């Protein structure tokens, strides 16, 4: 919220500079986000008198004006209408830097204009740009505007929601008094009450005592609606409020000054009740009651809406906005001034229901000081007399259905000590708290009892008082200490998921993949193609920032594919990316939840998404090869080995539609009943990509099985075999449709199930796959390397050869394969 230092200063005296005051406020919990001043803009502007005015010889709408600054005279060309000789206005001399322009001495159609004559808008003090600024209120001819009431400093203050009392100049000034040890001032509010008793003109009834705890009404007559004086318009404008006319401006200003939203009714437009009197009732609306508001909006009310009603029906939405019917107009002369306390939730619900979060509603929602409303009403009356010539009726109607009492809070000194880490004498505690308006009611050896002022409704418990003491004492005086005792929270696992996920990240990064972090919300059309099997619809946001961020991802692939397109658009086609992130699915009734609250939540799962496309290896001197499935497989095996997981099984069944049906696999863990599909690896279906780019290889898999494996992995040392090994190579020609995996399984099984005098097939590698000349069409040649070893002795050439020949013979019997010549 923006504050005027001129207005604040009416409430305190201090010799501190604006910067120092701002620093005190910031340190006291009211962060001054910006200090602004209009002094530079007003620096070279002066009150001048128009001495002479003549039409410009070569421009119809321009005047040549001679002005006097008292000491000197200047000739200025002006396009303003209605320039009168003898009038006081404002002249900006060459060199002045106004908000919208830099003033210079310039030639305008053959006449040199020395500076310019200014409207209020030119000066940046109001939005009035019709004519020249009337400088009468600014002082004598020759006065520099920096020395007038227009010159001001503004604080942009972040007022936290617990401190609605500081959302007005009076309230923030109260804080300045306490924080900067300034001397408080209280502006005098005096006005005469001349007209008939207010009670003769109006009656008030509070029918809903829950929604309205206090209502003060005053009446005034002979109100003259006009433009507000410059000081008020300038002040409102500088604080972001557009001046309208004096009555509205007064209510707006009193709200900014004292925090109390006010409302003014045109008394004569209210329904007459019993003779010449009017009656207003504060009540809930009747069902389907309607009201045309000040902003021309027609609202249909509900039985929850708190309204002010006359005999005919609702005339205002209490605390939110007045009705059009009873609004003050240029013809108004009799008014009713409302200063009331409406209950926060009643106002909030109404404002929310009708989308009318007005400044007034916002203030009632946050909380208004019930004791300050009389003062605000009086201040408004004072201004009505001064600025509108109003005649105020005698007395006020002040209805307060419930007795108001001041809350008291007790503070135990040892509790304060336990929070601060040091103890303070009771006198010091009392002194700090009394500086912000608390009254010490009683004290004993252990605690102090304070009465809380009505404007500090946020102080309800002892911890609230502790905060105030610490704030006023100063955090810089709190000692620093490192807690010496207390154990750590006992986590369920010796190594947290975070650390294991971290290891997985490291592994992927060191395998050449770049980690990406994408938004968890995506566009529905990005989500649909990759929706996991079993998910019928994505988790959808009620209030997304935009349509393309409106559903929660249920797969990491949309993000990776979008990233792929992003890079393709920048000509980058070789990519290796991964993301370890959460995906979200609606909860089905079968899935267990930890609590009733969790039952309402969607399911979340950490997954690994990985994308690989383009050259397998980069750089000079390496063979050109495109990335392929076996790069994915190699990585998955690396993960399994590193994390101690069982080897994955690769099946060509269960493939989702976004995968190439013949270039992908589902990934399986576990045996028999325990077997589970943990994810997929393979080529993205070419149709899932917009472009016909080179193949894109992806992994989409669960992470939990990896983390589990890491947690339970046990590794035992295997003695190293010191005897020499023996290698045999075997090249087979086989049909392209013959999968190689089963061949190798057969080789291993055969060796394992046949006696070879203890000779072990230690390793079996596929070391070459070849298609081309010398291999028949539709066939390929696969070369295998066998490593044999005996644990206890050196192998003999002959024994290995015999067994090996038997294996080859068994192979050719069981598979359609031929030995390659």
């Amino acid at each position, binding site marked *: 919220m923006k504050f005027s230092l001129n207005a604040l200063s009416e409430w305190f005296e201090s010799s501190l500079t604006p910067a120092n005051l701002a620093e005190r406020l910031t340190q006291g919990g009211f962060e001054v986000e910006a200090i602004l001043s209009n002094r530079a803009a007003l620096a070279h502007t002066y009150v001048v008198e128009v001495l002479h005015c003549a039409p410009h010889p070569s421009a119809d709408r321009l005047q040549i004006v001679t002005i006097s600054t008292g000491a000197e005279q200047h000739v200025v060309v002006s396009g303003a209408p209605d320039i009168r000789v003898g009038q006081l206005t404002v002249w900006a001399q060459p060199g002045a830097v106004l908000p919208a322009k830099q003033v210079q001495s310039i030639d305008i159609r053959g006449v040199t204009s020395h500076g310019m004559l200014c409207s209020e808008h030119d000066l940046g003090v109001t939005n009035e740009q019709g004519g020249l600024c009337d400088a009468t209120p600014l002082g004598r001819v020759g006065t520099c505007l920096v020395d007038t009431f227009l010159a001001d400093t503004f604080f942009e203050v972040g007022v*936290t929601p*617990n401190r609605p009392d500081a959302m007005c100049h009076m309230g923030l000034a109260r804080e300045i008094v306490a924080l900067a040890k300034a001397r408080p001032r209280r502006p005098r509010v005096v006005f005469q009450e001349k007209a008939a008793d207010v009670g003769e003109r109006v009656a008030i009834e509070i029918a809903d005592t829950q929604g309205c705890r206090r209502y003060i009404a005053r009446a005034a007559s002979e109100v003259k609606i006009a433009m507000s004086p410059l000081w008020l318009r300038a002040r409102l404008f500088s604080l972001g409020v557009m001046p309208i006319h004096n009555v509205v401006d007064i209510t707006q200003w009193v709200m900014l000054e004292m925090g109390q939203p006010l409302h003014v009714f045109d008394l004569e437009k209210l329904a007459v009740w019993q003779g010449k009197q009017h009656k207003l009732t504060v009540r809930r609306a009747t069902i389907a009651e309607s009201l045309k508001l000040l902003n021309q909006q027609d609202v249909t009310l509900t039985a929850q809406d708190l309204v002010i009603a006359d005999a005919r029906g609702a005339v205002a939405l209490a605390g939110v906005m007045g009705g059009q019917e009873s609004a003050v107009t240029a013809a108004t002369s009799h008014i009713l001034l409302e200063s009331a306390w409406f209950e926060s939730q009643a106002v909030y619900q109404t404002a929310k229901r009708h989308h009318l979060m007005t400044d007034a509603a916002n203030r009632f929602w946050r909380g208004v000081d019930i004791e300050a409303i009389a003062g605000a009403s009086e201040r408004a009356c004072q201004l009505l007399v001064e600025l509108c010539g109003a005649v105020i009726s005698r007395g006020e109607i002040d209805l307060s259905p419930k007795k108001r009492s001041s809350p008291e809070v007790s503070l135990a000194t040892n509790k304060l000590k336990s929070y601060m880490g040091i103890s303070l004498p009771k006198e010091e505690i009392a002194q700090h708290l009394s500086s912000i308006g608390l009254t010490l009611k009683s004290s004993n050896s252990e605690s102090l009892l304070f009465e809380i002022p009505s404007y500090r409704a946020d102080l309800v418990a002892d911890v609230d008082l502790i905060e105030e003491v610490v704030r006023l004492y100063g955090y*810089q005086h709190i000692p620093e200490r490192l807690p010496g005792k207390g*154990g750590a929270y006992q986590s369920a696992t010796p190594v947290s998921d975070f650390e294991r996920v971290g290891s997985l990240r490291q592994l992927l990064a060191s395998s050449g993949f770049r980690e990406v*972090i*994408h938004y968890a919300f995506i566009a529905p059309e990005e989500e649909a193609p990759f929706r996991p099997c079993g998910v019928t619809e994505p988790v959808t946001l009620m209030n997304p920032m935009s349509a393309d961020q409106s559903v929660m991802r249920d797969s990491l692939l949309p993000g990776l594919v979008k990233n792929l397109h992003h890079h393709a658009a920048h000509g980058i086609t070789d990519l290796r990316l991964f993301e370890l992130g959460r995906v979200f699915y609606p909860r089905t009734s079968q899935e267990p939840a930890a609590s009733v609250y969790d039952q309402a939540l969607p399911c979340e799962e950490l997954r690994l998404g990985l994308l690989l496309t383009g050259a397998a290896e980069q750089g000079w001197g390496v063979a050109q090869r495109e990335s392929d499935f076996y790069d994915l497989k190699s990585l998955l095996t690396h993960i399994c080995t590193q994390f101690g997981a069982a080897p994955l099984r690769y099946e060509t069944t269960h493939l989702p539609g976004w995968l190439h049906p013949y270039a992908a696999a589902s990934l399986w863990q576990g045996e028999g009943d325990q077997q589970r599909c943990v994810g997929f690896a393979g080529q993205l279906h070419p149709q899932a990509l917009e472009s016909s780019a080179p193949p894109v290889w992806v992994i989409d898999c669960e992470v939990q099985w990896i983390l589990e494996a890491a947690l339970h992995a046990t590794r035992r040392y295997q003695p190293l075999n010191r005897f020499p090994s023996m290698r045999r190579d075997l090249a087979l020609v086989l049909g392209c449709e013959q999968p190689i995996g089963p061949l190798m399984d057969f080789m291993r099984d055969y060796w394992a199930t046949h006696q070879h005098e203890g000779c072990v097939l230690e390793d079996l590698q596929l070391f070459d796959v070849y298609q081309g000349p010398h291999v028949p069409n539709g066939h390929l040649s696969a070369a295998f390397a066998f490593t044999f070893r005996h644990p206890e002795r050196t192998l003999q050439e002959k024994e290995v050869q015999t067994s090996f020949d038997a294996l080859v013979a068994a192979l050719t019997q069981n598979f359609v394969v031929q030995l390659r010549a």
Partner: protein
Amino acid sequence: MSNQNSENVNFQSVTKQLENLLFQSQKEIELTVQIEDLFNVKSRYLGRKSELSELLRLLPSLEQEERSRVGQLVNQLKQTIEQLVEQKAQVLRDKLIELRLLQSRIDVSRPERQNWRGSLHPLTQVQDRICHVLTRLGFDFADGPQIEHDFYNFESLNFPKNHPARAMQDTFFIHPEVLLRTHTSPVQVRVMNRAKPPIRIICPGAVYRRDADLTHSPMFHQVEGLWVDEEVSLADLKGVLRTFAEQMFGAHTQIRLRPSFFPFVEPGVEVDVSCLFCRGTGCRVCKNSGFLEVLGAGMVHPNVLVNIPGATPRLRGFAFGMGVERIAMLLLGVNDIRLFFENDTRFLEQF
């Protein structure tokens, strides 16, 4: 060779011959370039059929005294030739090695091979660093869902329904009661529900608020810390945060606590650290204040501590939270938060 008249041998002629042999062998060794030739030279001068052997056969015809002198001279000559051969052999071997090394010379100025290089996302790197410092201070990891129930995200954290404090965190809703968590604080409550004090946890993770500009992202990351025990005070909070700030931003980093408001703590503070760029003297980054706002913190509100089953009145706690993006932007000099989520590899490869 001139020893046909071996019968006429005399001492002078023998010594003369030996000198000649020395001279000749020296010359020949010197001229040899192949190591194999060198050994031929050696056997030619010292072998069984060498001139020297011939000479030795004449020795018996000499006088006793002369014989022993010639014997010495012959031995000297033998040794000298052997030494010369050995020296020359060493030179030739060195040359050979040098030649082989030279042949395998590489061009170190040639650029490295552009192998695939992976990296961790800058946010991960910064988050890891934050967590590393905090785990060393004794905090353990805790986690919770990102789509939260209103109860955990607000209600149990002392944000009553329709309270103005909720307006501070513009929320994404899935359902009126279910939302994207606006902070990592709900994890505090989840841990409190099931743990017995002392509690000392950090909760890193993604959070969501409806806000987007150069420094605000609708999804961002927080790391939150919670310490609950009897007799922990603001002094402990200051100690922990000061230690954290020093380890995170460098020795001598100062911290400054300012009163602020978060419903789940009372007292609540904003924590500024002395500007890492100007060390507190004032610069553009800290807007001349000398301090940077990086953390929120406070003493856990009693209304939140009640989430601990069987909490005693003596129980105290402090909590603090920080935005990973904010710290990453400061540490890495990133001026547009969106870069973190665009994931352009040209951005990622810088870290």
